[in-house]
């Protein structure tokens, strides 16, 4: 798998606290990578590090094949755009002027593409209105447009839907999906609004206490969160024979428990198990969401 960003043992300590403790992760090319973690888990610190706003205390990261300690890391950074916490825009300028300003910073020879960018983020009708009079959603979209100036391949968004109304959340979500699908932009997005993230992400990284607790793809997460019936029996070998006979899809977890991924007639199952000399001790329907998966993963405890 080709990675846009790879971090190894990233640590960031401040005078009195430690924000990242040896975090290791990888963002595959073309992914929408959802960084999941509660407040203070280290999401924003990680983003600040990879954006070059802060330097790691130890550990390294690689951006488009260049290490953060390489002299030419700035060249890799030119391929990325980011909105860190609040959108970085001049409030006394219009949307168009903000984009022109960023075009100048990037050294682009002309302002070609500004109209298209404004259209992409839905600000084509903002006209001469100053950004300070924009709604939060408009500011957020302008922040993304500024980050998209210069056609980056990698977009980093820190809590992009924070404080937005439902309509604003939908607009940002659709924009991110469009950027990923139509422009093949790899997106790293941090959020603690898990429901929203689950509609976007193709990969997840669960971060807690400054460490990566788990990284997995959306497909793996879906499998882990699949609706199932968890059975506890006295003999899983007998259970397997019965389930095979019924043509059910299942997974043996240990000597006593198994997950069955479809509805099964309980009376038939009990009778068949009895015939095999096996007893059904417990039966539970499980329907895990990203939220419950996250809670079960970080669980309020430490992950040493």
């Amino acid at each position: 798998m080709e990675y846009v960003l790879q971090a190894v043992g990233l640590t960031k300590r401040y005078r009195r606290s430690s924000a990242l403790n040896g975090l290791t992760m990888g963002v595959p090319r073309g992914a929408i990578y959802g960084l999941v973690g509660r407040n203070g888990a280290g999401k924003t610190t990680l983003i600040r590090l990879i954006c070059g706003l802060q330097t790691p205390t130890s550990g390294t990261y690689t951006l488009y094949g260049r290490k953060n300690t390489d002299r030419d890391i700035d060249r890799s950074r030119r391929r990325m755009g980011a909105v860190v916490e609040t959108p970085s825009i001049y409030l006394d300028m219009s949307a168009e002027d903000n984009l022109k300003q960023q075009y100048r910073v990037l050294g682009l020879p002309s302002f070609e593409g500004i109209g298209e960018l404004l259209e992409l983020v839905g600000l084509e009708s903002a006209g001469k209105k100053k950004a300070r009079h924009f709604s939060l959603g408009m500011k957020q979209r302008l922040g993304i447009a500024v980050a998209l100036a210069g056609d980056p391949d990698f977009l980093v968004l820190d809590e992009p839907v924070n404080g937005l109304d439902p309509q604003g959340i939908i607009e940002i979500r659709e924009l991110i999906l469009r950027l990923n699908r139509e422009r093949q932009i790899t997106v790293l997005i941090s959020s603690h609004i898990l429901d929203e993230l689950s509609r976007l992400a193709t990969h997840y990284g669960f971060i807690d206490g400054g460490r990566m607790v788990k990284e997995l793809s959306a497909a793996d997460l879906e499998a882990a969160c699949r609706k199932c019936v968890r059975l506890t029996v006295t003999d899983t070998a007998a259970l397997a024979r019965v389930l095979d006979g019924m043509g059910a899809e299942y997974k043996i977890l240990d000597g006593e428990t198994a997950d069955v991924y479809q509805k099964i007639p309980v009376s038939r199952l009990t009778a068949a198990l009895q015939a095999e000399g096996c007893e059904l001790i417990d039966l539970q329907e499980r329907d895990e969401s990203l939220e419950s998966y996250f809670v079960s993963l970080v669980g309020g405890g430490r992950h040493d």
Partner: protein
Amino acid sequence: MTDLLRAGFSRLWRAPIFWLGIVFMGGYGVIVCWDVYESMLGGYADYFGGYTMYDLCRYHCIVTVFLPSVFCALFLGTEYEHGTIRNKLIAGKSRPAVYLSSLVLSLAACFLMIGAYFLPVCIIGPFFTEGLGVSPGTLALIVIGELLMAAALCGLCTLGSMLISRKAVLAVTLLLAVLAGLAVGGYFEGRLQEPEYYQGIMMTEEGELVDASDMENPSYLRGGEREAYQFAADFLPTGQALLYNFDMMVHPWAMCLYSLLILAASTAGGLIAFRRKDLK
């Protein structure tokens, strides 16, 4: 850095604080000219001699010391307040380039504001002043010294602007620093201006009036102490401003050198500190 300068100047031309500074300094130049003209009409020249261009070229210095602090706090401070400084770094611009472009912008803005003062002075001044007052070389040295004093202040204020991320804290810090600098400079100059001998009549503790001419002033600074005070007044940009304004320069060449030293040291220190600064 060219891109950053292009972006910075484009923002500068539309910044209200810059144009306010230009209008203020231009207006101040007109007021100074008018004030001098009125004094001339009031017979000032008959008693104290006429004004010269040399005088007009110095009268802006006390006001000028506030320009870098106000400009840096409100113009450069906005980069942190709006978070736009992050866009530059994320776009792959190096920290030294970001720092130096900010310094160049503040230097350019302050020089242009000082230029706005000199514009009416140079147009109107010659009509009622009595020539240059000093040799062209001396006048040029003084004007260059004033610009270098402003440059030193720009260096210090840019350093503050790049290291203090909160605009309100930055504005208060820079203004207080300038006021404190003026107070300290004023103290040094006050001590340096103490007369060596008392002049006139003094009253003793017994109430007797005695002729105090040629009596030694115990507060008069002598020897190494005087040199130290003179050095401090020459070295501090705010001290320089007072020296220029009240025509008390003793070492104009050294003052130019000190300003350059302050500019170089503050820039070097600022570059090192900004390179290490954690931005949010």
